[in-house]
């Protein structure tokens, strides 16, 4: 069994009002050193056998993320 982690974040040019709201809350809590927050999604996939990187890239690009607005990062780990 392998674990594959997929992180999805908005592209830098797409504004992230949710991240900005979190940043505003941090400021109100006194965490003045935090300069910016970008909110994203974190998927953990358990895969039988050896993960097929090409298949996982396709899954990430066609379902887990919308490439119009989001970037993805794949992290493969084998137990």
């Amino acid at each position: 069994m392998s674990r594959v982690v997929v992180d999805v974040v908005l592209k830098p040019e797409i504004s992230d009002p949710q991240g900005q709201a979190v940043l505003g809350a941090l400021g109100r809590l006194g965490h003045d050193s935090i300069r910016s927050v970008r909110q994203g999604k974190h998927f953990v996939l358990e895969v039988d056998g050896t993960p097929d990187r090409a298949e996982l890239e396709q899954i990430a690009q066609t379902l887990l993320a919308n490439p119009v607005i989001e970037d993805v990062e794949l992290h493969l780990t084998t137990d």
Partner: protein
Amino acid sequence: MRIGVITFPGSLDDVDAARAVRLAGGEPVVLWHGDHDLEDVDAVVLPGGFSYGDYLRAGAIAARSPLMQDVVAAAKQGLPVLGICNGFQVLCEAGLLPGALTRNSHLHFRNRDQMLVVERADTTWTRDFDEGQRILIPVKNGEGRYVGSDADLDRLEGEGRVVFRYAGGNPNGSSRDIAGVTSENGRVVGLMPHPEHAIEDLTGPSTDGLGFFTSVLKAVVNA
């Protein structure tokens, strides 16, 4: 003229859309997302709501449902398709329309009567309007901010594919006040505001929404 209205799990405005079709003079046909049968309809409406609870991204799961595969194939052959609100999100996720809909810039759900300017009166769904006409249609969304890269937006504008723009205030922070766009052939249209809620004086702010449905009925007759 048979106009299909697809119901997904979490659709809310499918009944209103079917009623709008009927009041415009068409025959609404109930379609189910899990089937693989478009029942020979002449056009399709994807209604508003929260298909699959907006899980993953608004419209993302619905765009990959069985019947949507048939809709995508038929749209590429010229089937007229209108996506309203969640239906617009589904069309973008399915790749039938460009761009994406994201969280409103102010983070609030916005529900109000909204003025729109018709920029294209020659699409299958807008031919009963005039270019430059202002129409009043309810808008209600939390993830209605239309976005795309500057290059993509420039290309869209250059190709004249912006069908509606918000007037009198942008309700969700959409790029360039874009409220609705169309496919290259003008037969697929998506917009965030809800024409099916503006079809009767008793319940809507206007009857401007009827024009969408009378437009497609004429287009289908003349096809």
